[in-house]
């Protein structure tokens, strides 16, 4: 798959109302991985990141990391099959959500997700599986 140019990808992602509402921002994308930053949204009274925002970001990261491995001329995205997420500790002011495709079969991608603080200390560990179909997207 051709990767999107970084800055337009960031602007497009960050401009989505749902992402703004939850305070999820695009940071990095490459073949087989994606990274988001999560912080309390502007104007929020919250000082720490909500686990609800992280949960949403984890699913988005699984989807997008898988998407970087899909050849849209002959395959299509078929939906998340499963997400598992375990918190090691309470999130602080910012979380970094990085999803990396660990296995890519013809019908399934297995994606590891690490959630850390800005210094790299673990907040949560996740794993997602994403279903892929043969045939171009209609």
């Amino acid at each position, binding site marked *: 798959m051709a990767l999107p140019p970084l800055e337009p990808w960031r602007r497009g992602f960050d401009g*989505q*109302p*749902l992402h703004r*509402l*939850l305070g999820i921002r695009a940071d990095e994308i490459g073949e087989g991985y994606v990274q988001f930053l999560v912080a309390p949204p502007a104007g*929020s*009274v919250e000082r720490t990141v909500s*686990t*609800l*925002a992280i*949960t*949403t*970001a*984890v*699913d*988005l990261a699984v*989807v997008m990391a898988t998407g970087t491995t899909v050849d849209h001329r002959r395959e299509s*995205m*078929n*939906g*998340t*099959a*499963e*997400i*598992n*997420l*375990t*918190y090691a500790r*309470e999130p602080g002011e910012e979380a970094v959500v990085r999803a990396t495709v660990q296995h890519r079969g013809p019908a399934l991608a297995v994606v590891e997700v690490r959630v850390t603080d800005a210094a790299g200390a673990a907040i949560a560990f996740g794993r997602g599986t994403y279903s892929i179909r043969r045939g171009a997207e209609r």
Partner: protein
Amino acid sequence: MTAASEPRWDAPLAEVAAYWRERPFWKELDIRLEALAPGYARLALHRNGWSVGGVRNSVNGGVLAMLAESAAQLSLRTVLEPGGRVERTQDLGISYASSAVAARTVVEARVRRVGRTALVAVEISDGDDGHLNCAARVSCLLARGEGVS
């Protein structure tokens, strides 16, 4: 954002639902609290432009996971001892069975175990025909109330 404090879970449902309805997530995504009983909570997501984004024009999987977590935490509030609170989510697992494409998606949470760690089973289903969209399991850490060992 409202400055009102959260009503007790056993206050009239309309009062509790109105409180949650003013929360930013709930307001924008049109999430409504429909029922609360000891060990049980039911929410409904009324589809709007915010919540979609999944494949086949379905509700975003991240939003569904977030709904499961929200419903689990709400159901736990109904079984807390005085002074107790939900500290945080510890573990969340969700399996997606079918795309959530209904105008109303229903989220039901049932408390299965209460202790230092509590376990909640959540099902998300189609509000039109009741078929299963997702099954989730959420565990949360609970803080005990004062005076309870």
